[in-house]
């Protein structure tokens, strides 16, 4: 598979079947979708079969707004060949995801990224050690945006 195609998939540059989309303003120079990040309880079930944002199992607490926060997205998708037959397309949010002055007393261990522009469609689920927050800030710092560590990587080997 051509690496450039994987990059095109991440930016929505190729469309191999019909799909219903929310308008991105222009057919030839569409705007970037908005990505949001919601936190989920350790007891929640999110996995590869998750297709859309749901408040079921989402954390609740002081100053946490259902649906989570908007992800800062200033990084372009990058597609890089590692050989003549392999490559990777990748993307990482360009800033930490921060929930400020929240109280989340029930343990949570998961952040769910979803596309709030396109009907809250699922992007990815990332787990970490179970945490609580009390009148404090929860900061989720992103990995380096490289071929081997980026948050979203679509690869061939």
């Amino acid at each position, binding site marked *: 598979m051509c690496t450039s195609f994987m990059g095109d998939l991440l930016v929505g540059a190729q469309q191999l079947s019909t799909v219903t989309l929310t308008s991105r303003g222009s057919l030839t120079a569409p705007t970037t979708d908005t990505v949001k990040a919601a936190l989920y309880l350790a007891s929640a079930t999110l996995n590869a079969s998750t297709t859309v944002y749901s408040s079921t199992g989402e954390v609740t607490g002081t100053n946490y707004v259902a649906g989570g926060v908007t992800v800062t997205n200033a990084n372009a998708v990058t597609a890089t060949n590692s050989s003549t037959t392999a490559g990777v397309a990748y993307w990482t949010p360009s800033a930490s995801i921060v929930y400020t002055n929240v109280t989340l007393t029930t343990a949570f261990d998961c952040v769910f990224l979803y596309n709030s522009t396109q009907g809250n469609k699922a992007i990815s689920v990332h787990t970490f050690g179970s945490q609580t*927050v009390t009148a404090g800030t929860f900061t989720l*710092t992103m990995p380096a945006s490289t071929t081997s*560590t980026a948050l979203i*990587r679509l690869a061939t080997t």
Partner: protein
Amino acid sequence: MALVNTTHGEMDESLLEKREGSLDNDIETTTWTEYWLNGELVHRSVHVSLKTGPALFAEAASFD
């Protein structure tokens, strides 16, 4: 005087007991800071640094 946001509002850090912790594994490096007042947890902040995202492998029937 450093102020800490707590469940009782902003408090002088010197009045509180500070506890810190961390964990490090293949997925994350995490640190947390807690402030306690007379045995009560009044503040807990957490900083999770993810090390990597999962790779999604794409396959084509052949590379021609």
